[in-house]
């Protein structure tokens, strides 16, 4: 059994933005159920002892927690390389300085569009863009490396060249161009988000050209959407293989979307250690390795390359979490993706909200 390399710490589901593609579950956790500072400190110590090298402090919006400096310090003191994944709109220079002092290593700042009006419509927050630009400056002034994260989809892909310009103008050393992955709120809004094949091909060409043009200055990571794929992604590098997430309420998950699979019970850090959850829980062992695989994954040459794709997507699209991911051309359900693409014509969507 491998030890995990990275921990995603979803500190809260609270967020001033309401992005229509949010990767949080549709059932959001309330503040009263969130883990305490001390509980997170224990999680970080246990993660480091288990073999994790990096932590991603995420949410929701991590800086919505009033103890974010203490949480960052605890992650750093545990020996973890500490990334913060933020919308940036709650940052001020004093908080940025305290986070740096606490040992923060890197900031990933989200941007919803290059055009401020487009960004307001997609993120559902007025005045977000100037605050994000200011946040980028604070990160740079603090001497921390900055990644800009641009989630792309049918409603902003026409601005991709300008998003790349924005990353350069805001001083990012790295840009993630991430096509939406269809879980949670994104799945609910899929018809408004799915890109056309032409949009995807254009985006890929634009990214390839920009990588060459800005070599040594801007690293671009590119995440493709699997609705146009014929092979599934190696989701999380395999279930329970390299990665674990802890939800705001303390559930230990093989990926942040895993709670969308109904009928699965995930261990809680309030009842068990991370090591016990990783090594011994039924949830982590359910889809680990290849023994669980049915046809056409069983015996497939790609079984240890893509690990059957994504369990959450298999469940969301077929109702069976053990099915081959429909993103695979060998899946009997592969036609579902083409059907979804042909139905994706609306511009109507629902904002993320607490229910």
């Amino acid at each position: 059994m491998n030890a995990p390399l990275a921990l995603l710490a979803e500190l809260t589901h609270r967020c001033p933005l309401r992005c229509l593609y949010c990767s949080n579950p549709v059932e959001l956790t309330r503040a009263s159920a969130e883990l305490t500072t001390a509980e997170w400190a224990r999680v970080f110590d246990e993660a480091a002892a288990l073999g994790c090298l990096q932590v991603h402090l995420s949410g929701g919006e991590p800086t919505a927690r009033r103890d974010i400096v203490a949480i960052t310090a605890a992650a750093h003191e545990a020996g973890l390389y500490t990334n913060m994944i933020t919308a940036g709109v709650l940052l001020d220079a004093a908080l940025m300085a305290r986070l740096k002092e606490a040992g923060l290593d890197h900031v990933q700042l989200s941007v919803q569009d290059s055009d401020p009006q487009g960004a307001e419509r997609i993120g559902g927050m007025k005045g977000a863009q100037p605050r994000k630009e200011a946040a980028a400056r604070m990160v740079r002034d603090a001497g921390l490396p900055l990644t800009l994260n641009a989630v792309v989809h049918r409603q902003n892909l026409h601005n991709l060249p300008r998003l790349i310009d924005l990353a350069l103008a805001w001083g990012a050393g790295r840009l993630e161009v991430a096509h939406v992955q269809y879980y949670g709120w994104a799945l609910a809004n899929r018809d408004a988000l799915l890109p056309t094949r032409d949009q995807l091909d254009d985006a890929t060409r634009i990214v390839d050209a920009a990588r060459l043009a800005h070599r040594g200055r801007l690293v671009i990571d590119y995440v493709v959407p699997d609705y146009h794929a014929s092979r599934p992604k190696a989701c999380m590098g395999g279930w329970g293989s390299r990665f674990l997430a802890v939800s705001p309420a303390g559930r230990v998950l093989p990926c942040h979307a895993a709670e969308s699979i109904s009928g699965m019970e995930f261990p809680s850090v309030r009842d068990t250690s991370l090591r016990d959850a990783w090594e011994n829980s039924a949830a982590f062992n359910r889809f680990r390795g290849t023994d669980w695989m049915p046809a056409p994954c069983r015996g497939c040459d790609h079984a240890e390359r893509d690990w059957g794709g994504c369990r959450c997507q298999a469940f969301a699209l077929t109702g069976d979490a053990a099915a081959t991911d429909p993103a695979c051309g060998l899946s009997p359900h592969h036609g579902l993706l083409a059907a979804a693409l042909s139905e994706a014509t609306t511009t109507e969507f629902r904002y993320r909200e607490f229910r």
Partner: protein
Amino acid sequence: MTPRFSPGVRLHHDKARDRWVVMAPERMFVPDETALEVLRLVDGARDVDGIIDALAAKFDAPRDVIATDVRAMLDDLVARGAVVT
């Protein structure tokens, strides 16, 4: 030309697996032996010639062979965003 680590990049000893890892923003990679030898000499003070000299002496190898390897390795590390020159 004096290479140094990009902001947020450092060599880290991975105790659980007893190996050296290049830690970077939301990324990590395990350098091969050649890359590790080069990265250990990247200190922001030593220039490329200095790194080549140090490795040629350490491995008692022809300087031009070492120079080719080191330049190729640094070029790759720059492309990955791990090192700036």
